[in-house]
């Protein structure tokens, strides 16, 4: 029973990384831009956050640095794709490759560094309640903040005027343009915000979750977050639930090993990747369903005056 509580806790923790990146990419994609550079943004943010934490000792400054690094990386992509009208796939891939190289380069002297002792939490005095205490009430504030963000984003997308404009830009950039909205400005902003959230996710990974810096430490989490937005048919709450589910799948390997299951660790490590493929196949089987839910202009450039 206690083991199960720990599995739930670990799933929520791992899921928070995916959820933060996932809602960032969701905002991004709702504006009609597909950024395949999530992995690169998260890696650069992970080292930026880690280095900040090493030097300042503050987790929140580290998240800030990660968010800033992610936003800056996203802006490189945004200027190329939105300003210079380059191919979104190629530019996003370039961002991922560059981020991998650059973070390894920048992080070389941090590979042996250790962070100050990680804080522990006990919320509302409920941390010692059997089962639900360790499962739900001993997390880093960011875990709860991610939930708040998802609720806030839902409100923003479906209840606020700005959210309506964002969706309009993604669904029909021509109409939004005709109404006088700056499609490219809004898209650039969405890309930067998306990058910032991916950055916070990367910093959470290196500062709280792991907590250490290893080259290529995201290990595909950025790509899984990208897949999540599709699984969730671009709905924030579904992104969150999907993220916890995948966090759970990632954690399942340690749980099973702890129970003495006789499978080579590599087969268990494949689980998150294989399940991503399986879920992707299940979801994509019905092309109409995807098409109805996908922002209509996703991946297509909008260049007024052509």
């Amino acid at each position, binding site marked *: 029973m206690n083991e199960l509580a720990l599995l739930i806790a670990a799933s929520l923790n791992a899921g928070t990384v995916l959820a933060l990146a996932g809602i960032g990419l969701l905002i991004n994609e709702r504006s009609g831009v597909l950024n395949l550079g999530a992995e690169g943004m998260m890696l650069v943010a992970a080292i930026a956050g880690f280095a900040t934490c090493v030097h300042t000792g503050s987790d929140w400054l580290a998240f800030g640095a990660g968010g800033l690094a992610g936003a800056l990386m996203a802006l490189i992509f945004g200027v190329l794709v939105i300003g210079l009208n380059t191919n979104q796939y190629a530019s996003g891939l370039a961002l991922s*490759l560059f981020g991998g190289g650059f973070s*390894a*380069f920048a992080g070389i002297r941090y590979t042996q560094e250790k962070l100050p002792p990680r804080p522990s939490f006990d919320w509302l005095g409920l941390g010692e309640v059997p089962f639900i205490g360790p499962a739900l009430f001993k997390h880093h504030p960011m875990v709860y903040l991610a939930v708040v963000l998802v609720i806030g984003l839902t409100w923003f997308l479906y209840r606020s005027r700005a959210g309506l404009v964002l969706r309009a830009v993604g669904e029909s950039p021509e109409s939004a343009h005709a109404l006088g909205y700056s499609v490219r400005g809004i898209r650039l902003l969405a890309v930067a915000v998306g990058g910032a959230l991916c950055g916070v996710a990367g910093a959470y990974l290196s500062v709280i979750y792991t907590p250490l810096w290893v080259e290529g430490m995201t290990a*595909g989490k950025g790509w899984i977050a990208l897949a999540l937005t599709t699984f969730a048919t671009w709905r924030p709450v579904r992104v969150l639930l999907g993220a916890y589910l995948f966090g759970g799948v990632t954690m399942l390997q340690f749980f099973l090993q702890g129970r003495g299951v006789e499978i080579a660790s590599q087969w268990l490590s494949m689980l998150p990747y294989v399940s991503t493929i399986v879920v992707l*196949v299940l979801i994509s089987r019905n092309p109409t369903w995807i098409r109805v839910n996908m922002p209509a202009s996703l991946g297509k450039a909008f260049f007024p005056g052509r």
Partner: protein
Amino acid sequence: MFKLEPRPAPSRWMSLASPLIALLCTVLIGTVMFAALGKPPLTGLSMFFFEPIKSAYAWAELSVKAVPLVLIALGLAVCFRGNLWNIGAEGQFVVGALAAGWVAMQAGPGTSRGIVVAILLAGVLGGMAWAGVVALLRDRFNASEILVSLMLVYVAEMLLSWLVYGPWKDPAGYNFPQTITFDAVTKIPRLFSGVRANIGVLIALLATALAWAFLFRTYRGFALQVGGLAPAAARYAGFSSRTALWTALLVSGGMAGLAGALEAAGPLGQLTPYVPAGYGFAAIIVAFVGRLHPVGIVFSAVLMSMFYIGGELAQSRLGLPKALTGVFQGLLQFTLLACDTLIHYRLRWVRSAAAGAPA
């Protein structure tokens, strides 16, 4: 401020000049970076742009890196021209190396030299099988080839790790995660004695010619490219998008697998967890810098190999991290994408927004 203005027709001149301008920008940024790191910029740059090509020996070393890049990038060019985004060549490379390694491990005292052919074929089949999964899931279930091919990279790496830590581990290898060293008879023949360049160079050149012929001289290659450029036109012309999908993915998977086989039975000579060296990802940049054209790919692969060797030299001589290679590769891709805008657009100086665009 500057304003982008569409050109009436794409500039042929710019499409050739843009990679050169991009390279120039990369060199400039590199100079600034070396200076910022407190290393002499000229020494640093010469390690990337002169040392790797200064002698016949250096060229032979360069070819060891360039061959896998050319082979993988040729396959990717076929894919990308068909608007299919196979970004998991790294995984197909690994599975090709696994299949080739399995054949190589069967070699014994009586084995003939002909086994090299079997090794290469196994590599091709291995890579095709791995890419075939992507094609199947895309064809039958409409699953994004980007995500599936990438996820399969991690799966392939785990598979490799399992094999070299488990069933394929060399019993006499002091518990290191590695297979037995392949029998000498399986070694890919070298071109000259004393250098590491092997017949992979000839295979890569042959593949370049074949890829050119396929893309520009066959019906299937033409249909595939039309499907990539204008899916509606392709449908109207009756070109099958399914044929294009399977062709592109099997070709690129096979090429990546072949590169994996050449690597496993060539410079490596055994399987270790370090088989995936990032060639599959670097080849994406090679393909783009080479304009998705077979001849261009050869040039850009040589350039990208210079970055690899330069990174190794910068590490051993200047004490800079080897990851510099990835930074340079990424920079080149960014600057190229930016410069490519100039093929379709012109930069025009506009005095102010109020003055408006010239009529």
